[in-house]
């Protein structure tokens, strides 16, 4: 026992190279989503992986006399997962930046690319200078994102995947996309409506990422890469994948120093909080009347209306809100062109409308039947009875549950970052990557959420206490 445990502990502490040798294989990570041509499932046989990075890693592993094993990991979280120890290498189009070098070890570059500006065919906005005051799409935390942030006046639209920026460009939601040449070739220039405006805005290179402390493994990887390059093996791999090789970039002197967590970043957080609050309140302002109409339709409507209201509620409660946002923003885009903010408010509002409908239906049904009988006995019409007697009572009963739903909505609103809206949580992740720390931005982000939701929670508690004092039962919120 002790004899086996001791060397293992030493290996983990001291040497990355010894560790992978003990494993007998290199565990390397990438993201298969939008992975072509890096590493992706073979369309002819989805049980197999293909890609130029897979071939690169196999050649590398062979040089080191090891096997290799792929680990799937979300692209934007590759670095934190590496630090956690989930795998040994990141080989997935990782761009060499000062910020990255400050956080992990990187290998020598294995591929050089150009940042390329893609626009709609015939567009007059063909350079970053001309795009001042316009919307330009890119991937969050990429080198292109960093370049765009150095250009004040450009409105940056951030995406999580390679395909979506070009789709939005086609749909006139943006005026250009800046991304590296591999992505631009595969995902942008394959669309007939798009063309290249500037083929070489800047140069960058892909590197392999390793954990700090794995210096000997990095040296081994570097010499293996150098050998592969000298033998022409790298060149053969790129030729097989039709990847254009560019000369290595000149060392960039003008690269901005890594960001620090200063007042400007804090100001961005408050801006993000403003977006979160505005989206949540507007979505709730949509959800409450929508829910009320659905509840009334379900309780008092004809057979068809009851069926429609019921179907709506079950459909929107029974499918993920993330999917609804995707469909609203990307799915129906060829028919209806919604701006991202409108899609976010509409999507959350329509989803929460289904929950509010159930809250208000429960509140209406909790009113004793004698109340509508008393209203009828006075000669009030059904509409008057509803408006003057039943609804005021139901809304008071439902108010605590609706306040609780608003708190939930405040937090659920972070989902809208998938459709390019930068709200509080998204701002936090962007900042965290910039300043290479999650602790302080995370704490500030949590504090702002808390500052927004705690007063609401107090309000809900007070409303509940008031209802109980009045002898009425508050309606429990259905589990969301």
């Amino acid at each position, binding site marked *: 026992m002790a004899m086996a445990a001791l060397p293992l502990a030493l290996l983990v502490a001291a040497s990355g190279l010894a560790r992978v040798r003990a494993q007998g294989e290199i565990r390397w990570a990438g993201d298969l989503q939008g992975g072509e041509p890096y590493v992706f499932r073979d369309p002819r046989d989805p049980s197999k992986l293909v890609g130029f990075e897979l071939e690169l890693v196999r050649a590398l592993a062979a040089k080191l006399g090891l096997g290799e094993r792929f680990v799937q990991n979300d692209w934007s979280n590759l670095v934190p997962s590496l630090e956690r120890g989930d795998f040994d290498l990141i080989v997935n189009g990782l761009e060499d930046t000062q910020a990255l070098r400050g956080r992990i070890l990187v290998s020598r570059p294995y591929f050089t690319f150009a940042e390329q500006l893609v626009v709609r065919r015939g567009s007059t906005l063909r350079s970053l200078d001309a795009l001042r005051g316009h919307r330009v799409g890119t991937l969050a935390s990429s080198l292109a994102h960093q370049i765009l942030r150095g250009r004040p006046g450009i409105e940056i639209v951030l995406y999580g995947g390679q395909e979506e920026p070009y789709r939005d460009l086609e749909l006139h939601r943006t005026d250009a996309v800046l991304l590296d040449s591999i992505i631009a070739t595969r995902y942008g220039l394959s669309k007939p409506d798009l063309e290249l405006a500037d083929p070489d805005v800047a140069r960058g290179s892909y590197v392999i990422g390793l954990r700090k402390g794995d210096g000997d493994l990095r040296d081994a990887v570097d010499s293996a890469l150098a050998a592969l390059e000298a033998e022409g093996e790298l060149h053969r791999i790129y030729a097989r994948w039709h990847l254009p090789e560019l000369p290595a970039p000149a060392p960039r002197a003008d690269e901005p120093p890594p960001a620090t967590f200063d007042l400007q970043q804090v100001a961005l957080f408050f801006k993000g909080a403003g977006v979160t609050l505005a989206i949540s309140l507007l979505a709730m302002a949509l959800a409450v009347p929508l829910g009320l109409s659905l509840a009334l339709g379900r309780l008092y409507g004809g057979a068809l209306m009851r069926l429609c209201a019921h179907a709506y509620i079950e459909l929107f409660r029974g499918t993920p809100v993330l999917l609804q946002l995707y469909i609203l923003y990307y799915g129906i885009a060829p028919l209806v062109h919604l701006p991202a903010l409108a899609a976010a408010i509409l999507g959350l509002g329509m989803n929460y409308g289904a929950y509010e409908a159930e809250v208000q239906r429960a509140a209406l049904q909790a009113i*004793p039947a*004698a*109340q509508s*009988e*008393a*209203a*009828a*006995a*006075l*000669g*009030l*019409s*059904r509409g*008057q009875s509803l408006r*003057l*007697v039943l609804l*005021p*009572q139901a809304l*008071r009963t439902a108010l605590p549950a609706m306040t609780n739903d608003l708190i939930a909505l405040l937090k659920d609103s972070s989902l809208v970052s998938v459709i390019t809206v930068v709200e509080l949580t998204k701002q936090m992740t962007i900042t965290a990557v910039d300043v290479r720390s999650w602790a302080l931005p995370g704490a500030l982000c949590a504090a702002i959420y808390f500052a927004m939701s705690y007063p609401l929670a107090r309000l809900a508690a007070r409303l509940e206490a008031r209802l109980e004092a*009045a*002898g*009425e039962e508050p309606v429990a919120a259905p589990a969301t």
Partner: protein
Amino acid sequence: MIVRVQGLEKAHGARQVLRGVDAQVARCETIAIVGPSGAGKSTFLRCLNGLVSFDAGAVEIAGMSLTPRTPPDSPALRPLRARVGMVFQSFHLFPHLTALENVLLAPVHVKRETREAAEERGRALLGRVGLGDRCAARPMQLSGGQQQRVAIARALAMEPEVLLLDEPTSALDPEMRGEVLSVLRDLAGTTTMLVVTHEMWFARNAASRIWVFDEGRLIEDGPPSQVTENPRTDRARAFFRAVK
């Protein structure tokens, strides 16, 4: 005759609740409706303003007629209900409104009175039932007896031609019954009232006639002294002996 009922029949499922009731009420009479529970008194009263639909027979009330099987939520019943007031056993005030707002609601929204006029009359009515100083109170802040007096003022605010009262004191403690009954006694003689009640003292002293219901039939109909002291039927005699 302000109320005329002919051959009224009503069944709840298999149970026959009313088995052919004929009755008439003249303007400003006070009718006390008594009888054992389950006799059909409350159902009869609710048939008169359409809160319960009946199966056969005819009702004429306040110049309007009601036909069998009219659904309780039929819009055709609204003019009738504007002229026929109702007071319930458990008051059924609207808890989100003040006493005065409860009284105002129907005059403003059904009769389309101006708010000022309705408010003036509402305050006067609450004063008349002894609650002139509780206009701004919510139902939860009032005792049962006070709530029932607000409910009476709410019904009177519509200036009904007929007032139906369904056991108006049964949900009250004994000490609160007196305050409600004295309000009803003041109304007797100036308003047409049909009161389902167990208060024999009230029936004897305030009613112009007593009706005794038994098993869905009206078995006694006459002045209080005659009906209570010298009833025609054995069943009525047994009933009065039991409640004495």
